[in-house]
């Protein structure tokens, strides 16, 4: 063997060694490499016969380059591997979405967020940063665990049993196509919006409308006075929203978007209110005693209970509206995604 052909063979061996590195260490590894090596040597031999002279290193390199990078070749020649196969992947995707979007994110925002806020002593910036920091690492850990569990199921083929157990008769009924809000619903919303606004406007003159019999000894406190205009504004927005929905039923995007904006506005008002209470937690007063009963111990206690009840309602409303805002955002995003070129439903479903 000449020096040149020895160098050529060495180049092939180096190439095969690099391929070996990427191939899984199975009993077929040597077999695969021997076959690939034989193919490459046959190619070189053929080319040499064609040219009538031995190939130089550059020509050998061209053949190897055409064959592909060692990693790529090993990927093609080795067994096809995947962490989660096509049979399990849709379930994996569904579980991952559920865990990350519908469990983890709400838990962090609505439970851990307020806890962090309480521990940070009302420092919103620090609480938000802390919550998002925890959320970020929580998302990674949860995604890792879900992936690991599914990879184990894939390896143990535990899902194969479930594959045979499904029953066509137990499939859920066909979902109705999303419809525009019914006229009756929109009319009711409009009626309630008018009623709500009128009720709100009457409150300063007729406090019994909210306090009932307690209006004899209670009246609205400073916080309610401070935020009254904001609640009137929210009520007007709600009325306008219902009016537009009624007048423009063809604007299918409007109910979703306006509902979301309304929730955001409400959250802003509630946030300001909670912040105002946070600044002087001992002096918050939604209701105060009328002058005539100011010193009555019995009524002082009642006023304190009413104030705490309203405070709890405000916090509860904040949590409820926050959850609603997340859901409405998701609904609006889903609506937008469906709009440009949504998949065609099968005729039997589309006509439902």
């Amino acid at each position: 063997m000449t020096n040149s052909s020895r160098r050529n063979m060495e180049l092939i061996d180096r190439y095969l060694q690099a391929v070996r590195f990427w191939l899984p260490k199975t009993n077929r590894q040597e077999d695969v490499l021997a076959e690939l090596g034989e193919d490459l040597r046959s190619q070189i031999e053929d080319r040499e016969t064609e040219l009538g002279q031995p190939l130089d290193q550059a020509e050998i390199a061209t053949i190897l380059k055409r064959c592909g990078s060692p990693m790529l070749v090993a990927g093609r020649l080795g067994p096809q591997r995947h962490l989660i196969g096509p049979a399990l992947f849709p379930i994996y995707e569904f579980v991952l979405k559920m865990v990350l979007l519908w469990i983890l994110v709400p838990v962090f925002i609505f439970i851990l967020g307020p806890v962090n806020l309480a521990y940070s002593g009302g420092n919103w910036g620090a609480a938000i940063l802390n919550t998002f920091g925890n959320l970020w690492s929580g998302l990674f850990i949860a995604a890792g665990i879900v992936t690991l569990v599914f990879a184990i199921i894939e390896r143990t083929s535990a899902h194969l049993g479930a594959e045979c157990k499904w029953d066509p008769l137990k499939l859920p009924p066909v979902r109705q196509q999303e419809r525009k809000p019914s006229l009756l619903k929109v009319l009711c919303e409009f009626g309630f919006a008018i009623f709500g606004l009128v009720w709100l406007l009457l409150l300063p003159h007729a406090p019994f409308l909210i306090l009932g019999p307690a209006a004899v000894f209670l009246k609205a406190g400073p916080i309610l006075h401070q935020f009254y205009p904001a609640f009137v504004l929210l009520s007007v927005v709600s009325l306008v929203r219902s009016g537009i929905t009624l007048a423009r039923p063809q604007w299918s995007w409007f109910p979703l978007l306006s509902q979301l904006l309304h929730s955001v506005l409400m959250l802003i008002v509630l946030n300001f209110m909670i912040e105002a209470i946070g600044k002087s937690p001992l002096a918050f007063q939604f209701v105060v005693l009328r002058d005539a009963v100011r010193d009555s111990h019995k009524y002082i206690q009642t006023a304190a209970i009413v104030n705490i009840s309203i405070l709890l309602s405000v916090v509860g409303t904040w949590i409820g509206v926050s959850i609603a805002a997340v859901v409405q955002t998701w609904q609006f995003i889903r609506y937008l995604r469906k709009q440009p070129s949504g998949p065609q439903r099968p005729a039997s479903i589309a006509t439902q």
Partner: protein
Amino acid sequence: MTNSTTVGLEILENLKLELRRGCLIVAVLAQLRSEQYGYTLRKALADDGLAIDEGTLYPLLRRLEAQGLLVSQWREEDKRNKRFYRLSPTGELILKQLLEEWESINQSLNRILQEASL
């Protein structure tokens, strides 16, 4: 080249790949009615217009062997060890059925194309 042309070419390449995949199996089985080793098989297929790279052929040969359609044997030829493949008896039977299926598909396709051109 516009974006839509690139997308069109990509789709065409993918469809061609899908179309070739099934045909390649029949072609490999048909070629291996006579014994051959990897490189000569690749050359024979390329000469007949069905070029196939190493990364596609060798896994396919291993798969067909694992399914019992091929048998292989390492043997020395021209002072080099080569793995020779040939069709197994099961492979011969399957090839016959595949060719019948191929013929049937071909006839159906021709009929559909003729109807479409009317």
